[in-house]
C-alpha cells in the first residue's frame, strides 16, 4: 500500500506516473510541453473540469489561480478562502470515501500526500478519475512548483505564471526584510496542541521548522524529526525565547496565562517575559499562496515579541 502511494506521487519534475489513459495523455502532453516550452499554450483541461481538492493549501492555490469555478468538493482542511467552506465537504483527508467523491462526478482529484486511505485513492483512480498527489516539501520552491502544476492541470497556465511572478516578488521583499535583522535570531518553540492534555512540539522536518528558518529564527527543539510530545525538561533545556502557537491551540488553552502554566514553560525566557505568539494554522503551516504574507506576519510577530520583552 505504501509503495503504491509513492508510485503515484508526482515528482518535482512534474512527470506524471499514472497508469490511466488520461495520465498517458498527460504524459505525452507533458513531454510535448517540455519540448515546446513556452511556445504552445497548454489549456488541455480548460473545459468543464470538475475538481475535488484535498488539502487546504491546494484549494488556496486553485482559488488564487481563479479556477475555483471548477471545484466540486474540498476536504475539511480547506478553510481559506471562506468561500471554500460552502463547497461540498468530502470529509477528513485521511478517511476519504471513494463513492462519496465519485458522487461529486469529478474529473480530477488533487490531493496532498495526507490523502487516504490508500485503497480509496486506488479505487478512485480505477474509476477512471485522474488522481494527482502533490508532494508538500515545505519550501518556497515547492510552492512555486505546485502553483505551476495546479495551473497546468486546471488549464490556468497563464495565471499560474503570473502568480509565480507575484509570489517571487513578494517573497523577495519579505526575505530581504527578514535578513535585514537576522543578526539576533530568537529561539522559538512551536507548540501544536488541540487540547492542553495533548501537547506536541515541532522538531526538524516539519512545516513549522521550515517557517522558523525562513523567518530567521531558530527552532528551539533540536535533535528529532516530526511532532513529538512535549517533555518539560527538554523544554527548559531548549530555553526558547518565544512560544509559537496556532490560533486554535491558543483558543483551546483559553489564554496566554494558561499556556504558561504548562510544565517547564515558566522556567524559560519565553515564559519569564511572557512572549507568546499565535497564528492561524493554515496560514502558518499550509505553504499555500499566502506564504509570503505568512512569513511577513510571523516575522513581525516575532520581532515585536522580542522588542516588547
Amino acid at each position, binding site marked *: 500500500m505504501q509503495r503504491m502511494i509513492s508510485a503515484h506521487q508526482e515528482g518535482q519534475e512534474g512527470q506524471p506516473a499514472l497508469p490511466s489513459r488520461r495520465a498517458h495523455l498527460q504524459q505525452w502532453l507533458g513531454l510535448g510541453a517540455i519540448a515546446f516550452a513556452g511556445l504552445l499554450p497548454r489549456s488541455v483541461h480548460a473545459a468543464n473540469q470538475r475538481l475535488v481538492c484535498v488539502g487546504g493549501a491546494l484549494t488556496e492555490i486553485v482559488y488564487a489561480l481563479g479556477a475555483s469555478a471548477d471545484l466540486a468538493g474540498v476536504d475539511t482542511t480547506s478553510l481559506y478562502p471562506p468561500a471554500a467552506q460552502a463547497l461540498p465537504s468530502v470529509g477528513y483527508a485521511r478517511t*476519504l470515501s471513494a463513492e462519496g467523491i465519485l458522487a461529486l462526478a469529478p474529473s480530477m482529484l488533487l490531493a496532498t500526500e495526507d490523502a487516504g486511505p490508500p485503497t480509496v485513492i486506488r479505487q478512485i483512480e480505477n*474509476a477512471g478519475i485522474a488522481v494527482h498527489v502533490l508532494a508538500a516539501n515545505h519550501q518556497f520552491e515547492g510552492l512555486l512548483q505546485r502553483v505551476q502544476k495546479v495551473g497546468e492541470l486546471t488549464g490556468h497556465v497563464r495565471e499560474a505564471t503570473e502568480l509565480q511572478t507575484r509570489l517571487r516578488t513578494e517573497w523577495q521583499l519579505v526575505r530581504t526584510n527578514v535578513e535585514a535583522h537576522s543578526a539576533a535570531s530568537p529561539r522559538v518553540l512551536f507548540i501544536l496542541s488541540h487540547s492542553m492534555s495533548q501537547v506536541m512540539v515541532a522538531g526538524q522536518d516539519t512545516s513549522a521548522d521550515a517557517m522558523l528558518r525562513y523567518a530567521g529564527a531558530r527552532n528551539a527543539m533540536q535533535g528529532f524529526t*516530526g511532532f513529538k510530545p512535549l517533555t518539560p525538561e527538554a523544554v527548559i533545556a531548549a530555553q526558547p525565547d518565544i512560544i509559537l502557537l496556532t490560533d486554535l491551540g491558543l483558543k483551546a488553552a483559553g489564554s496566554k496565562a494558561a499556556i504558561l502554566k504548562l510544565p517547564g514553560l515558566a522556567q524559560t525566557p519565553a515564559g519569564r517575559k511572557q512572549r507568546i505568539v499565535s497564528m492561524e494554522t493554515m496560514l502558518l503551516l499550509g505553504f499555500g499562496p499566502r506564504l509570503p504574507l505568512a512569513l511577513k506576519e510571523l516575522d513581525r510577530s516575532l520581532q515585536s515579541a522580542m522588542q516588547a520583552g
Partner: protein
Amino acid sequence: MRIPFRSTPSAHWGNKWHVTLLLATTLLALAIASSIGAVPISWRDWLPPLHGENTGNSYVLWELRLPRTLLALLAGGMLGVAGALAQGLFRNPLADPGLLGVNSGAACAAALTIVFADSLPWGLPAGLRPWLLPLAAFAGALLVCFTLDRVARWITPGSIAGLLLTGIALNAIAVAVLGLCTYLSTDEQLRSLSFWTLGSLAGAGWTIVGVALLMLLMAIWQVRRLARAMNALALGEAAAAHIGIEVATLRSRTILIVALLVGATVAWCGMISFISLIAPHLVRTLHGSDQRRVLPLSIFVGGLLLLIADTLARTLATPAEIPVGIFTALLGGPFFLMLLNQTRERIG
C-alpha cells in the same frame, strides 16, 4: 402421555423455515444497501459491466458498493460467529472477543508489521507481502486467545469478572503498543494506521470478498461439527468431559477459529467492535441458547448488523463517510451496559 417438545433435542442446524426467512431478509438488505449511496444507481447499472468498459455508475456499483456490502455481510457474519464461539468457550454472554482484547491484539500485531516490516534485517519475499498483515493479525489474535484461555482455566477459573479484567489489561497493553507504533511511524505509515484503527470497510474488493467467503464457509463447516460439543461445554468443562466431549480439542479448535475470524476481519476492516457481542445475544434472546442454532444464526444477524451500520456510515454524511467502527461502538456500548445490568448478580 408424550409431552410436546417446543424444540426437539434432535433439531439440526437451525429450523429450515427460519433460515429461509433470514436468507430472504439478508438478500433484501443486500439489495437495499447496494442501491443506496452517494451515487444514484439506476437498474441499467445492475447489468454486469461489458468487457472492461467499466466506468461511471456501473463502476461504483460493481467495484465499490457490491464488494463493500458483501464484505459487510461476510465480516459481520465472521464477527458474529466468532462472538458466539468465544461466548460458548468462556461460558458467558459477556465474553466478547472485542472486550477481551482479541481485536486489539490483532490490530496491535498488524500495526507492528506496518511500522516495522520495512526495517526488518531480512527482506520479505514479495509474494508474502499482501498476506503479512492478515497473518500478523491472526497471530496477534491467537496470542490473546491463548492468554485468555490460560487465565480462564488457571488464574481465575470460572469467573467472568477475572476474564473481563484480563481483557481490560490486554486492551490496555494493545492500546499502548498501538500508541507506540503511532509515535514511531512515519507520516506515510500513520496514514495506514489511522485507516483501520477506526474500522472501515472502504478497502473492500472482490479478492477480499472471495477470501472472506472462503474463510466463512470453512468456519461454518468446522462450526457445524463443533456445535453439539459447544452445547455440552455449557455444563462446564468437567461435565462435558464426563459426557464424552474431548474438551481440550474443542477448546484449541475453537480458539483457532476465533483467532482466524477476528484476525481476518481486523486485517481487512480494522477494529469493529460489539458486533460479536450483540449478534449472539440477539439470537439467544429470540431462539434460545442451543448452540446448533446460535452459531449459524449469529452469522446472519452479525452480517445484517454490520451491513446496516456500514450503510449508515457511508450514507449519512455524503460525500464524506463516518468510520463504521464509531457506529458499532455507539450501538454496542449501551447494549453492553444493558447486558451487564442483566447479568450483574452472576458476576464476581
